[in-house]
């Protein structure tokens, strides 16, 4: 009993080892907190990066699968104000046509879905945009899709 009392007394009165214990505890706490913060930050950054890269790869892949062919352009209509454009989806993904330009002026806008292997025609009424085709003139036609692909070419109007 006396022996224990002396040991407790010596521990209370002692000036050494307490700093070592605290230092150890502090270091462990710092490692845990900093490590946890670093891990959370890393997983967050990686998640954000993965999300952005995933969207990039997905949109690029979807766009790369698009192939659109303008099969025929028919200049018609009263007052030379109509153009029929026949487009075929020859890609591996459905296509949404967003706009058509005639001589660099927007002549049609909207959303027209063309499925793989299908052909569709877009009727342009040039009256609203103040355009008209001239007999024999070469017309520059551009078809743009929602994913950002563009198909363009020159077609000559009939005499």
């Amino acid at each position: 009993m006396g022996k224990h009392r002396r040991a407790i007394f010596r521990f209370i009165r002692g000036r050494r080892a307490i700093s070592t214990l605290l230092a150890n505890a502090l270091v462990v706490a710092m490692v845990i907190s900093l490590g946890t913060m670093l891990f959370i930050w890393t997983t967050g950054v990686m998640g954000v990066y993965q999300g952005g890269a995933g969207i990039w790869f997905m949109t690029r892949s979807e766009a790369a699968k698009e192939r659109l062919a303008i099969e025929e352009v028919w200049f018609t209509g009263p007052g030379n104000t109509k153009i029929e454009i026949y487009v075929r989806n020859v890609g591996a993904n459905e296509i949404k046509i967003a706009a058509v330009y005639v001589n660099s002026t927007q002549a049609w806008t909207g959303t027209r879905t063309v499925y793989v292997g299908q052909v569709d025609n877009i009727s342009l009424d040039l009256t609203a945009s103040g355009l008209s085709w001239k007999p024999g003139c070469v017309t520059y036609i551009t078809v743009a899709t929602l994913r950002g692909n563009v198909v363009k070419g020159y077609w000559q109007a009939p005499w």
Partner: protein
Amino acid sequence: MLKHFRVRRKGIGTVLGAVYFIMIVITIFNVIMWEANQYSAYQQTVSLMNQDDQDRMSEGLEFPYPVIEYPINETGSIYDLLVRNTGSISVSVARIYVYKMFSNQMWILEKDINFTNGFINSGEINHKIRVVSSHDMRPSDPSVPNFIIYLATERGRTFSTYYPKTVSEYPPPGVNVGWIDIGPLRFIYDYRSLNYTTNTMSTPAPAWILKPYTGTTPLLFSVKVINLSNVSDIWLKRYCVFNCIELSWSGASGKTASFFIVDKLSTQPIPGAMFPYDETSPQILPKAPMPRPPLGGIPVIVKFGAKDWGTANPKPLFTQGGYPMYEYLVLMGFFYVWKGQDYGSTIPFVAIRTNTPT
């Protein structure tokens, strides 16, 4: 060893740090592996689509003379379309468009409904696509093209021909009857490639024989030109001129009637329908989409009708009355900017007549 590790009092922080480090490294490694997978999948898609593009570019169809045969009846609505596959890959025709010139009509022929036998193997030279339609394909005038036939393939290419063909497919060796090339310019000799209108005639007509034509009647000539160069567009200058040299033996005065270029929107040599050529917004002959394009490039119609350059003053061929039969040799002067430099060419073009009966 384990007992030694268990009773140790030092190194807990190091162990925890190492664990965290390993976890972070594994996380980053996972992300790198994921990105490699994504990139691989993307490259696979691009490769597949590139292969499709190569297949598309490998297609090649031609229409051997006489383009259409009528094997069954003479009504003209059931016929065989002759096709030659000159490409390195088989072709499947998805749709046929028939454009009827002069009346501006379009007929669409669907696969398996209006035509059969649309699959053409590579190397086939006389393939027949059987067409059953409700439209008569017999030309009203066999000497001029009446139709344009477009074949659209399943890969997205389009091949076209005039029907009937008016230029022999196989000219004699060394003879070129279809066009003349001077510098980067190609001038076409189709029957419909040289046309004219007058102050009273708004519908263009072939200008090989102007008939009936009397003096003081202003003229507007239209010429089909192609830029063969795939390097640069060509900007035409206002000095471009269509010179008609009278041959005096036929009673003409021997003068030269010069028609200068006018705006491409001009349709007739009358005020409000003929516009002066403006060099600040010049007529452009677009460059060919590829070297040596199989169809020769993009045709553009250039119009001549002004008495002086840069004006819309109309000009007649001659001023005598009546309907004289004269002959003209046509020399064209083409002044243009190509690759940023000024050029000029004399084009020995055509010979035209007025009022001759044949």
